[in-house]
Protein backbone atom coordinates (compact mmCIF):
# COMPACT_ATOMS: atom_id res chain seq x y z
CA UNK A 1 0.00 0.00 0.00
CA UNK A 2 1.23 3.46 -0.84
CA UNK A 3 -0.03 5.20 2.27
CA UNK A 4 0.81 5.27 5.94
CA UNK A 5 -1.74 6.17 8.57
CA UNK A 6 -1.70 7.94 11.90
CA UNK A 7 -3.17 6.16 14.90
CA UNK A 8 -6.43 7.97 14.22
CA UNK A 9 -6.44 6.59 10.67
CA UNK A 10 -5.46 9.79 8.93
CA UNK A 11 -3.73 8.93 5.62
CA UNK A 12 -0.20 10.26 5.21
CA UNK A 13 2.19 10.07 2.26
CA UNK A 14 4.64 7.19 2.02
CA UNK A 15 7.62 8.70 0.15
CA UNK A 16 9.85 6.71 -2.17
CA UNK A 17 13.36 7.47 -3.45
CA UNK A 18 12.00 9.55 -6.32
CA UNK A 19 9.72 11.70 -4.18
CA UNK A 20 11.74 11.90 -0.94
CA UNK A 21 13.46 15.25 -1.83
CA UNK A 22 10.03 16.90 -2.05
CA UNK A 23 9.19 15.80 1.49
CA UNK A 24 12.70 16.71 2.72
CA UNK A 25 12.06 20.20 1.32
CA UNK A 26 8.72 20.40 3.10
CA UNK A 27 10.43 19.59 6.39
CA UNK A 28 12.65 22.62 5.74
CA UNK A 29 9.54 24.73 4.92
CA UNK A 30 10.42 24.83 1.22
CA UNK A 31 8.18 23.84 -1.66
CA UNK A 32 10.85 22.00 -3.63
CA UNK A 33 10.13 20.72 -7.11
CA UNK A 34 12.02 19.43 -10.11
CA UNK A 35 13.02 21.80 -12.88
CA UNK A 36 13.85 20.68 -16.40
CA UNK A 37 16.42 22.91 -18.14
CA UNK A 38 14.20 23.02 -21.24
CA UNK A 39 10.64 22.81 -19.93
CA UNK A 40 10.75 24.37 -16.49
CA UNK A 41 9.24 23.20 -13.23
CA UNK A 42 7.05 20.13 -13.12
CA UNK A 43 5.04 18.37 -10.42
CA UNK A 44 4.54 15.66 -9.07
CA UNK A 45 8.07 14.24 -8.74
CA UNK A 46 9.02 11.94 -11.61
CA UNK A 47 12.09 10.16 -12.90
CA UNK A 48 11.86 12.15 -16.14
CA UNK A 49 10.40 15.44 -17.35
CA UNK A 50 6.81 14.84 -18.52
CA UNK A 51 7.33 17.14 -21.52
CA UNK A 52 10.62 15.91 -23.05
CA UNK A 53 11.34 12.77 -21.00
CA UNK A 54 14.78 14.17 -20.22
CA UNK A 55 16.40 13.13 -16.96
CA UNK A 56 18.68 16.12 -16.52
CA UNK A 57 16.33 17.95 -14.14
CA UNK A 58 17.40 19.42 -10.82
CA UNK A 59 15.61 20.02 -7.53
CA UNK A 60 14.95 23.70 -6.89
CA UNK A 61 12.86 25.64 -4.42
CA UNK A 62 9.77 27.36 -5.78
CA UNK A 63 8.32 30.51 -4.30
CA UNK A 64 5.60 28.47 -2.64
CA UNK A 65 3.16 31.12 -3.87
CA UNK A 66 0.29 30.75 -6.26
CA UNK A 67 -3.41 31.25 -6.73
CA UNK A 68 -6.52 29.11 -6.45
CA UNK A 69 -7.22 27.70 -9.93
CA UNK A 70 -10.33 25.98 -8.63
CA UNK A 71 -11.63 24.64 -5.34
CA UNK A 72 -14.48 22.95 -3.57
CA UNK A 73 -15.68 22.78 -0.01
CA UNK A 74 -15.95 19.19 1.13
CA UNK A 75 -18.98 19.35 3.41
CA UNK A 76 -18.96 15.69 4.46
CA UNK A 77 -15.29 14.69 4.55
CA UNK A 78 -14.89 11.90 2.01
CA UNK A 79 -11.83 10.53 3.87
CA UNK A 80 -13.30 9.08 7.08
CA UNK A 81 -10.37 10.23 9.23
CA UNK A 82 -10.82 13.81 7.98
CA UNK A 83 -14.57 13.82 8.62
CA UNK A 84 -14.31 15.84 11.81
CA UNK A 85 -12.53 18.63 9.91
CA UNK A 86 -15.43 19.08 7.47
CA UNK A 87 -16.34 21.44 6.01
CA UNK A 88 -12.90 22.14 4.58
CA UNK A 89 -11.70 23.63 1.32
CA UNK A 90 -9.65 21.65 -1.19
CA UNK A 91 -8.00 23.66 -3.96
CA UNK A 92 -6.05 23.15 -7.14
CA UNK A 93 -3.32 25.74 -6.70
CA UNK A 94 -1.47 27.09 -9.71
CA UNK A 95 2.01 28.09 -8.59
CA UNK A 96 3.74 31.21 -9.88
CA UNK A 97 6.25 28.85 -11.49
CA UNK A 98 3.49 27.04 -13.41
CA UNK A 99 2.86 23.61 -11.90
CA UNK A 100 -0.47 22.79 -10.29
CA UNK A 101 -0.79 21.07 -6.93
CA UNK A 102 -3.91 20.11 -5.00
CA UNK A 103 -4.06 20.59 -1.25
CA UNK A 104 -6.32 21.55 1.60
CA UNK A 105 -6.62 25.23 2.39
CA UNK A 106 -5.97 26.06 6.04
CA UNK A 107 -6.27 29.21 8.15
CA UNK A 108 -9.24 30.28 6.08
CA UNK A 109 -13.03 30.35 6.31
CA UNK A 110 -13.98 27.74 3.71
CA UNK A 111 -17.00 29.80 2.66
CA UNK A 112 -14.80 32.78 1.75
CA UNK A 113 -12.59 30.96 -0.77
CA UNK A 114 -12.77 32.15 -4.39
CA UNK A 115 -11.08 31.22 -7.64
CA UNK A 116 -8.04 33.48 -7.96
CA UNK A 117 -7.36 33.75 -4.22
CA UNK A 118 -3.64 34.33 -3.62
CA UNK A 119 -2.21 31.56 -1.48
CA UNK A 120 1.10 30.32 -0.12
CA UNK A 121 2.37 26.97 1.03
CA UNK A 122 1.79 26.07 4.67
CA UNK A 123 3.55 23.16 6.34
CA UNK A 124 2.33 20.75 8.97
CA UNK A 125 4.50 18.27 10.84
CA UNK A 126 2.71 15.02 11.58
CA UNK A 127 5.02 12.57 13.35
CA UNK A 128 8.06 12.13 11.12
CA UNK A 129 6.27 13.49 8.06
CA UNK A 130 5.71 17.03 6.89
CA UNK A 131 2.72 17.63 4.65
CA UNK A 132 1.98 20.67 2.51
CA UNK A 133 -1.24 22.66 2.64
CA UNK A 134 -1.93 26.18 1.39
CA UNK A 135 -3.27 29.27 3.16
CA UNK A 136 -4.20 32.77 2.07
CA UNK A 137 -1.04 34.70 1.18
CA UNK A 138 0.18 37.16 3.75
CA UNK A 139 2.92 39.75 3.56
CA UNK A 140 4.56 38.19 6.62
CA UNK A 141 7.38 35.85 5.57
CA UNK A 142 7.46 33.82 8.78
CA UNK A 143 3.85 33.12 9.62
CA UNK A 144 2.98 30.72 12.46
CA UNK A 145 2.45 27.04 11.91
CA UNK A 146 -0.82 25.67 10.58
CA UNK A 147 -4.14 25.66 12.34
CA UNK A 148 -4.35 23.29 15.34
CA UNK A 149 -7.45 21.86 13.70
CA UNK A 150 -5.17 20.04 11.28
CA UNK A 151 -2.72 18.71 13.88
Amino acid at each position, binding site marked *: *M*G*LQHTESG*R*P*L*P*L*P*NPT*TQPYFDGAKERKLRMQRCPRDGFFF*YPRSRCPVCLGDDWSWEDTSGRGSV*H*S*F*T*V*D*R*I*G*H*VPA*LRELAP*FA*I*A*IVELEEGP*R*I*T*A*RLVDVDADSV*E*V*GLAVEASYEDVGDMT*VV*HFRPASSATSAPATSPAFA
Partner: protein
Amino acid sequence: MPKRSATIVGLSEWTPKRVWDEPMFSLEAHARLAAEVLEDAGIDKAEVDGFVVSGVYESPMFGPSAAAEYLGIHTNFAELVDLGGATACGMIWRAAAAIEVGACETCLVLCPSVTPPFPTGAAPRKMDFPIYLGGDAWGSPQGQFEIPEGLVAATPSFAMVAQRYMARYGLREETLAKIAVEARDNAQRNPQAIFHDKPITIDDVMNSRMVCDPLKLLEIVMPCFGGAAVLLTTPERAKRTPHRPVYVSGFGEHCTHKSITYAPDLLDNPIRVAADRAFAMAGAERSAVDMASMYDCFTITVLVTIENAGFCGKGEGEKFVSEHSLRWDGDWPLNTHGGQLGMGQAGTAGGMSHATEAVRQLMGRAGERQLAKADLAYVNGTGGMMAEQVALIFEGA
Protein backbone atom coordinates in the same frame (compact mmCIF):
# COMPACT_ATOMS: atom_id res chain seq x y z
CA MET B 1 -25.11 3.25 -45.74
CA PRO B 2 -22.58 3.58 -42.91
CA LYS B 3 -18.97 3.32 -43.99
CA ARG B 4 -18.04 1.06 -41.12
CA SER B 5 -18.83 -2.59 -40.87
CA ALA B 6 -19.58 -3.75 -37.34
CA THR B 7 -23.05 -3.88 -35.86
CA ILE B 8 -24.62 -4.26 -32.44
CA VAL B 9 -27.28 -6.95 -32.65
CA GLY B 10 -28.30 -7.67 -29.06
CA LEU B 11 -28.32 -6.37 -25.52
CA SER B 12 -29.01 -7.38 -21.97
CA GLU B 13 -29.38 -5.04 -19.02
CA TRP B 14 -30.18 -5.89 -15.42
CA THR B 15 -32.23 -3.67 -13.16
CA PRO B 16 -29.78 -1.78 -10.92
CA LYS B 17 -30.13 -2.38 -7.18
CA ARG B 18 -28.56 -0.69 -4.19
CA VAL B 19 -28.19 -4.05 -2.48
CA TRP B 20 -27.55 -7.04 -4.72
CA ASP B 21 -29.74 -9.75 -3.22
CA GLU B 22 -28.70 -12.62 -5.48
CA PRO B 23 -24.97 -12.97 -4.80
CA MET B 24 -23.01 -14.46 -7.67
CA PHE B 25 -19.42 -14.57 -8.69
CA SER B 26 -18.26 -12.23 -11.42
CA LEU B 27 -17.60 -15.29 -13.62
CA GLU B 28 -21.19 -16.46 -13.06
CA ALA B 29 -22.45 -12.98 -13.92
CA HIS B 30 -20.41 -13.01 -17.15
CA ALA B 31 -21.99 -16.35 -18.07
CA ARG B 32 -25.54 -15.14 -17.37
CA LEU B 33 -25.07 -11.92 -19.34
CA ALA B 34 -23.57 -13.90 -22.24
CA ALA B 35 -26.49 -16.34 -22.31
CA GLU B 36 -29.00 -13.48 -22.24
CA VAL B 37 -27.37 -11.33 -24.91
CA LEU B 38 -26.93 -14.30 -27.25
CA GLU B 39 -30.59 -15.21 -26.81
CA ASP B 40 -31.61 -11.62 -27.46
CA ALA B 41 -29.64 -11.59 -30.71
CA GLY B 42 -30.65 -15.10 -31.72
CA ILE B 43 -27.02 -16.03 -32.23
CA ASP B 44 -25.52 -19.37 -31.28
CA LYS B 45 -22.74 -19.39 -28.73
CA ALA B 46 -20.59 -21.39 -31.16
CA GLU B 47 -20.35 -18.30 -33.36
CA VAL B 48 -18.69 -16.21 -30.66
CA ASP B 49 -14.97 -15.74 -31.21
CA GLY B 50 -14.38 -12.39 -29.54
CA PHE B 51 -14.56 -11.40 -25.91
CA VAL B 52 -14.21 -8.07 -24.12
CA VAL B 53 -14.39 -7.76 -20.34
CA SER B 54 -13.95 -4.95 -17.84
CA GLY B 55 -12.46 -7.01 -15.06
CA VAL B 56 -13.02 -10.45 -13.54
CA TYR B 57 -12.92 -10.33 -9.75
CA GLU B 58 -11.98 -13.98 -9.37
CA SER B 59 -9.05 -13.50 -11.73
CA PRO B 60 -7.31 -10.15 -11.19
CA MET B 61 -4.77 -11.33 -13.74
CA PHE B 62 -5.71 -13.10 -16.99
CA GLY B 63 -9.29 -11.84 -16.75
CA PRO B 64 -10.37 -12.33 -20.38
CA SER B 65 -9.05 -15.89 -20.60
CA ALA B 66 -10.54 -16.75 -17.20
CA ALA B 67 -13.97 -15.64 -18.37
CA ALA B 68 -13.61 -17.25 -21.80
CA GLU B 69 -12.59 -20.54 -20.17
CA TYR B 70 -15.54 -20.40 -17.76
CA LEU B 71 -17.95 -19.84 -20.65
CA GLY B 72 -16.25 -22.43 -22.84
CA ILE B 73 -15.48 -19.99 -25.64
CA HIS B 74 -12.40 -20.19 -27.84
CA THR B 75 -11.47 -16.64 -28.78
CA ASN B 76 -9.65 -15.01 -31.64
CA PHE B 77 -9.83 -11.73 -29.74
CA ALA B 78 -9.77 -11.39 -25.94
CA GLU B 79 -9.52 -7.95 -24.40
CA LEU B 80 -9.61 -6.21 -21.02
CA VAL B 81 -10.52 -2.53 -20.93
CA ASP B 82 -9.74 -0.26 -17.98
CA LEU B 83 -11.09 3.23 -18.67
CA GLY B 84 -13.28 3.83 -15.63
CA GLY B 85 -16.63 5.25 -16.68
CA ALA B 86 -15.51 5.23 -20.31
CA THR B 87 -14.83 1.49 -20.15
CA ALA B 88 -18.09 0.31 -21.75
CA CYS B 89 -17.80 2.69 -24.71
CA GLY B 90 -14.12 1.79 -25.02
CA MET B 91 -15.05 -1.90 -25.06
CA ILE B 92 -17.62 -1.37 -27.81
CA TRP B 93 -15.31 0.38 -30.24
CA ARG B 94 -12.54 -2.12 -29.63
CA ALA B 95 -14.98 -4.93 -30.42
CA ALA B 96 -16.16 -3.08 -33.54
CA ALA B 97 -12.60 -2.41 -34.68
CA ALA B 98 -11.64 -6.06 -34.10
CA ILE B 99 -14.56 -7.17 -36.27
CA GLU B 100 -13.73 -4.63 -38.98
CA VAL B 101 -10.13 -5.74 -39.33
CA GLY B 102 -11.19 -9.37 -39.30
CA ALA B 103 -9.63 -10.28 -35.96
CA CYS B 104 -12.96 -11.81 -34.95
CA GLU B 105 -16.51 -11.97 -36.27
CA THR B 106 -18.85 -12.08 -33.28
CA CYS B 107 -17.86 -10.42 -30.05
CA LEU B 108 -19.34 -10.38 -26.55
CA VAL B 109 -19.01 -7.17 -24.54
CA LEU B 110 -19.80 -7.93 -20.90
CA CYS B 111 -20.08 -5.54 -17.94
CA PRO B 112 -21.30 -7.24 -14.77
CA SER B 113 -21.12 -5.43 -11.43
CA VAL B 114 -22.42 -7.76 -8.72
CA THR B 115 -21.75 -8.97 -5.19
CA PRO B 116 -20.09 -12.37 -4.79
CA PRO B 117 -21.31 -14.89 -2.22
CA PHE B 118 -19.48 -14.61 1.07
CA PRO B 119 -16.99 -17.37 1.91
CA THR B 120 -18.51 -20.19 3.91
CA GLY B 121 -18.26 -19.35 7.59
CA ALA B 122 -17.24 -15.75 7.05
CA ALA B 123 -19.42 -13.00 8.44
CA PRO B 124 -21.28 -11.12 5.70
CA ARG B 125 -20.13 -7.57 5.24
CA LYS B 126 -21.16 -4.69 3.08
CA MET B 127 -19.03 -3.94 0.07
CA ASP B 128 -17.10 -0.71 0.63
CA PHE B 129 -16.99 1.99 -2.02
CA PRO B 130 -13.30 2.22 -2.91
CA ILE B 131 -12.88 5.95 -2.20
CA TYR B 132 -9.16 5.87 -3.03
CA LEU B 133 -9.92 4.43 -6.49
CA GLY B 134 -6.65 2.50 -6.48
CA GLY B 135 -4.63 5.63 -5.73
CA ASP B 136 -3.22 4.04 -2.60
CA ALA B 137 -0.92 1.67 -4.51
CA TRP B 138 2.77 1.89 -3.52
CA GLY B 139 4.41 4.65 -5.53
CA SER B 140 1.12 6.19 -6.62
CA PRO B 141 1.24 10.00 -6.96
CA GLN B 142 -2.32 10.20 -5.61
CA GLY B 143 -1.30 8.33 -2.46
CA GLN B 144 1.47 10.81 -1.77
CA PHE B 145 0.08 14.13 -2.91
CA GLU B 146 -3.70 13.98 -2.98
CA ILE B 147 -5.30 11.37 -0.74
CA PRO B 148 -3.63 12.79 2.40
CA GLU B 149 -5.10 16.18 1.45
CA GLY B 150 -8.60 14.78 1.10
CA LEU B 151 -8.87 14.59 -2.69
CA VAL B 152 -10.49 11.17 -3.05
CA ALA B 153 -13.49 9.55 -4.76
CA ALA B 154 -14.86 11.67 -7.64
CA THR B 155 -17.19 14.30 -6.23
CA PRO B 156 -14.51 16.80 -5.08
CA SER B 157 -12.84 16.64 -8.50
CA PHE B 158 -16.02 17.23 -10.51
CA ALA B 159 -17.01 19.95 -8.04
CA MET B 160 -13.76 21.74 -8.92
CA VAL B 161 -14.66 21.52 -12.61
CA ALA B 162 -17.98 23.16 -11.76
CA GLN B 163 -16.35 25.91 -9.65
CA ARG B 164 -13.90 26.70 -12.41
CA TYR B 165 -16.77 26.84 -14.88
CA MET B 166 -18.72 29.21 -12.63
CA ALA B 167 -15.71 31.49 -12.23
CA ARG B 168 -14.94 31.46 -15.94
CA TYR B 169 -18.40 31.69 -17.53
CA GLY B 170 -20.91 32.13 -14.72
CA LEU B 171 -23.46 29.39 -14.11
CA ARG B 172 -26.68 29.29 -12.14
CA GLU B 173 -26.96 26.29 -9.87
CA GLU B 174 -30.57 25.94 -11.03
CA THR B 175 -29.29 25.08 -14.51
CA LEU B 176 -27.36 22.13 -13.14
CA ALA B 177 -30.46 21.17 -11.14
CA LYS B 178 -32.51 21.13 -14.38
CA ILE B 179 -30.21 18.41 -15.74
CA ALA B 180 -30.92 16.24 -12.69
CA VAL B 181 -34.67 16.91 -12.88
CA GLU B 182 -34.95 15.99 -16.56
CA ALA B 183 -32.91 12.83 -16.01
CA ARG B 184 -35.44 11.88 -13.34
CA ASP B 185 -38.30 12.79 -15.68
CA ASN B 186 -36.94 10.30 -18.19
CA ALA B 187 -36.48 7.70 -15.46
CA GLN B 188 -40.25 7.80 -14.88
CA ARG B 189 -40.61 6.06 -18.25
CA ASN B 190 -37.98 3.43 -17.42
CA PRO B 191 -39.25 0.69 -15.10
CA GLN B 192 -35.64 -0.44 -14.60
CA ALA B 193 -34.54 2.94 -13.22
CA ILE B 194 -33.66 3.03 -9.54
CA PHE B 195 -35.58 6.31 -9.31
CA HIS B 196 -38.63 5.12 -11.24
CA ASP B 197 -41.71 6.51 -9.47
CA LYS B 198 -39.54 9.09 -7.71
CA PRO B 199 -39.70 12.34 -9.71
CA ILE B 200 -37.99 15.44 -8.33
CA THR B 201 -38.23 19.21 -8.79
CA ILE B 202 -35.66 21.97 -9.14
CA ASP B 203 -36.40 22.90 -5.53
CA ASP B 204 -35.75 19.33 -4.39
CA VAL B 205 -32.31 19.47 -5.98
CA MET B 206 -31.53 22.95 -4.68
CA ASN B 207 -32.60 21.96 -1.17
CA SER B 208 -30.74 18.65 -1.13
CA ARG B 209 -27.62 18.41 0.99
CA MET B 210 -24.54 20.25 -0.26
CA VAL B 211 -21.83 17.62 -0.65
CA CYS B 212 -18.98 19.43 -2.42
CA ASP B 213 -19.79 22.99 -3.49
CA PRO B 214 -21.60 23.49 -5.78
CA LEU B 215 -22.66 19.83 -6.20
CA LYS B 216 -25.63 18.73 -4.11
CA LEU B 217 -26.76 15.22 -3.26
CA LEU B 218 -29.36 14.99 -6.04
CA GLU B 219 -26.74 15.96 -8.66
CA ILE B 220 -24.65 12.89 -7.82
CA VAL B 221 -25.22 9.35 -9.08
CA MET B 222 -26.32 6.58 -6.77
CA PRO B 223 -23.78 3.70 -6.75
CA CYS B 224 -25.57 0.40 -7.43
CA PHE B 225 -25.04 -3.16 -8.50
CA GLY B 226 -26.20 -4.47 -11.86
CA GLY B 227 -24.91 -5.63 -15.20
CA ALA B 228 -25.19 -4.97 -18.92
CA ALA B 229 -23.92 -6.46 -22.15
CA VAL B 230 -24.06 -6.04 -25.91
CA LEU B 231 -23.19 -8.36 -28.77
CA LEU B 232 -21.47 -7.21 -31.94
CA THR B 233 -21.10 -9.02 -35.24
CA THR B 234 -20.61 -8.45 -38.94
CA PRO B 235 -23.39 -6.85 -41.05
CA GLU B 236 -23.72 -10.18 -42.91
CA ARG B 237 -24.47 -12.15 -39.74
CA ALA B 238 -26.62 -9.26 -38.45
CA LYS B 239 -29.10 -9.97 -41.26
CA ARG B 240 -30.06 -13.20 -39.47
CA THR B 241 -30.88 -11.45 -36.17
CA PRO B 242 -34.37 -10.39 -35.07
CA HIS B 243 -33.69 -6.70 -34.37
CA ARG B 244 -32.69 -3.72 -36.49
CA PRO B 245 -28.88 -3.85 -36.50
CA VAL B 246 -27.10 -0.80 -35.09
CA TYR B 247 -23.89 0.21 -36.84
CA VAL B 248 -20.99 1.53 -34.81
CA SER B 249 -20.30 4.08 -37.52
CA GLY B 250 -17.80 6.26 -35.71
CA PHE B 251 -15.69 6.29 -32.61
CA GLY B 252 -13.05 8.40 -30.91
CA GLU B 253 -11.09 8.16 -27.70
CA HIS B 254 -8.89 10.66 -25.93
CA CYS B 255 -7.11 10.69 -22.59
CA THR B 256 -5.00 13.50 -21.14
CA HIS B 257 -4.51 12.86 -17.42
CA LYS B 258 -5.63 10.83 -14.43
CA SER B 259 -6.02 13.25 -11.52
CA ILE B 260 -8.01 16.44 -12.03
CA THR B 261 -4.97 18.32 -10.68
CA TYR B 262 -3.07 17.61 -13.88
CA ALA B 263 -5.88 18.12 -16.38
CA PRO B 264 -4.42 20.42 -19.05
CA ASP B 265 -7.58 22.54 -18.85
CA LEU B 266 -10.54 21.81 -16.56
CA LEU B 267 -12.94 23.22 -19.15
CA ASP B 268 -11.38 21.81 -22.35
CA ASN B 269 -12.06 18.12 -21.89
CA PRO B 270 -10.79 15.10 -23.83
CA ILE B 271 -14.24 14.49 -25.29
CA ARG B 272 -13.67 17.44 -27.65
CA VAL B 273 -11.02 15.47 -29.54
CA ALA B 274 -12.85 12.16 -29.14
CA ALA B 275 -16.16 13.53 -30.46
CA ASP B 276 -14.48 15.29 -33.39
CA ARG B 277 -12.83 12.02 -34.36
CA ALA B 278 -16.06 10.05 -34.01
CA PHE B 279 -18.15 12.45 -36.10
CA ALA B 280 -15.43 12.69 -38.75
CA MET B 281 -15.16 8.91 -38.95
CA ALA B 282 -18.92 8.53 -39.28
CA GLY B 283 -19.16 11.38 -41.78
CA ALA B 284 -22.07 12.65 -39.69
CA GLU B 285 -23.14 16.12 -38.64
CA ARG B 286 -24.03 16.97 -35.05
CA SER B 287 -27.28 18.52 -36.29
CA ALA B 288 -28.38 15.10 -37.60
CA VAL B 289 -28.22 13.44 -34.19
CA ASP B 290 -31.64 12.19 -33.02
CA MET B 291 -30.59 11.52 -29.45
CA ALA B 292 -27.60 11.92 -27.18
CA SER B 293 -26.59 9.52 -24.44
CA MET B 294 -23.93 11.19 -22.33
CA TYR B 295 -22.13 9.94 -19.25
CA ASP B 296 -23.70 11.73 -16.29
CA CYS B 297 -21.92 10.84 -13.08
CA PHE B 298 -22.73 14.41 -12.02
CA THR B 299 -24.84 17.19 -13.52
CA ILE B 300 -21.76 19.26 -14.38
CA THR B 301 -20.41 16.34 -16.42
CA VAL B 302 -23.36 16.69 -18.79
CA LEU B 303 -23.06 20.45 -19.16
CA VAL B 304 -19.36 20.47 -20.02
CA THR B 305 -19.79 17.41 -22.25
CA ILE B 306 -22.51 19.10 -24.32
CA GLU B 307 -20.06 21.96 -24.90
CA ASN B 308 -16.91 19.98 -25.47
CA ALA B 309 -18.57 17.41 -27.71
CA GLY B 310 -19.42 20.38 -29.91
CA PHE B 311 -23.21 20.62 -29.57
CA CYS B 312 -22.79 24.27 -28.55
CA GLY B 313 -19.91 26.69 -28.14
CA LYS B 314 -17.63 27.03 -25.13
CA GLY B 315 -19.41 28.88 -22.35
CA GLU B 316 -22.79 28.34 -23.98
CA GLY B 317 -23.75 25.24 -22.03
CA GLU B 318 -26.03 27.07 -19.64
CA LYS B 319 -27.91 28.71 -22.51
CA PHE B 320 -28.18 25.34 -24.30
CA VAL B 321 -29.50 23.48 -21.26
CA SER B 322 -31.91 26.29 -20.43
CA GLU B 323 -33.30 26.58 -23.94
CA HIS B 324 -33.74 22.88 -24.68
CA SER B 325 -35.84 20.19 -23.10
CA LEU B 326 -33.61 17.19 -22.43
CA ARG B 327 -36.62 14.95 -21.83
CA TRP B 328 -37.43 11.92 -23.98
CA ASP B 329 -40.32 13.97 -25.43
CA GLY B 330 -38.29 17.17 -25.60
CA ASP B 331 -36.58 18.90 -28.51
CA TRP B 332 -33.12 17.54 -27.57
CA PRO B 333 -33.59 14.07 -26.05
CA LEU B 334 -30.72 13.21 -23.72
CA ASN B 335 -30.27 10.05 -21.68
CA THR B 336 -33.79 8.87 -22.40
CA HIS B 337 -33.33 5.99 -19.94
CA GLY B 338 -32.91 8.50 -17.14
CA GLY B 339 -29.15 8.54 -17.37
CA GLN B 340 -27.20 7.19 -14.47
CA LEU B 341 -28.58 10.06 -12.42
CA GLY B 342 -32.02 8.48 -12.82
CA MET B 343 -31.21 4.81 -13.37
CA GLY B 344 -28.31 4.35 -10.95
CA GLN B 345 -24.61 3.77 -11.51
CA ALA B 346 -23.96 0.04 -11.59
CA GLY B 347 -20.18 0.05 -11.99
CA THR B 348 -19.08 -0.30 -15.61
CA ALA B 349 -22.67 -1.30 -16.44
CA GLY B 350 -23.60 2.30 -15.60
CA GLY B 351 -21.43 3.52 -18.44
CA MET B 352 -22.87 0.76 -20.61
CA SER B 353 -26.41 2.02 -19.92
CA HIS B 354 -25.79 4.99 -22.23
CA ALA B 355 -24.96 2.60 -25.07
CA THR B 356 -27.72 0.08 -24.39
CA GLU B 357 -30.29 2.88 -24.33
CA ALA B 358 -29.14 4.23 -27.68
CA VAL B 359 -29.25 0.70 -29.10
CA ARG B 360 -32.73 0.21 -27.66
CA GLN B 361 -33.96 3.45 -29.24
CA LEU B 362 -32.40 2.71 -32.63
CA MET B 363 -33.84 -0.81 -32.57
CA GLY B 364 -37.25 0.63 -31.67
CA ARG B 365 -37.40 -1.21 -28.35
CA ALA B 366 -37.59 1.72 -25.91
CA GLY B 367 -41.21 1.15 -24.92
CA GLU B 368 -43.09 4.11 -23.51
CA ARG B 369 -40.08 6.38 -24.00
CA GLN B 370 -39.50 5.42 -27.65
CA LEU B 371 -38.50 8.37 -29.81
CA ALA B 372 -40.52 8.98 -32.98
CA LYS B 373 -37.30 9.18 -35.00
CA ALA B 374 -34.21 7.32 -33.87
CA ASP B 375 -31.68 6.70 -36.63
CA LEU B 376 -28.52 8.42 -35.41
CA ALA B 377 -27.28 8.48 -31.81
CA TYR B 378 -24.35 10.12 -30.10
CA VAL B 379 -23.07 8.14 -27.11
CA ASN B 380 -20.19 8.84 -24.79
CA GLY B 381 -18.37 7.65 -21.72
CA THR B 382 -16.31 9.60 -19.23
CA GLY B 383 -13.69 7.88 -17.13
CA GLY B 384 -11.87 9.09 -14.06
CA MET B 385 -11.81 12.81 -13.47
CA MET B 386 -12.84 14.01 -16.95
CA ALA B 387 -9.69 12.14 -17.89
CA GLU B 388 -10.44 9.47 -20.46
CA GLN B 389 -13.41 9.95 -22.72
CA VAL B 390 -14.87 7.90 -25.55
CA ALA B 391 -17.40 9.05 -28.17
CA LEU B 392 -19.45 6.66 -30.31
CA ILE B 393 -21.79 7.26 -33.22
CA PHE B 394 -24.54 4.66 -33.66
CA GLU B 395 -26.57 4.42 -36.84
CA GLY B 396 -29.60 2.26 -37.46
CA ALA B 397 -29.27 -0.03 -40.47
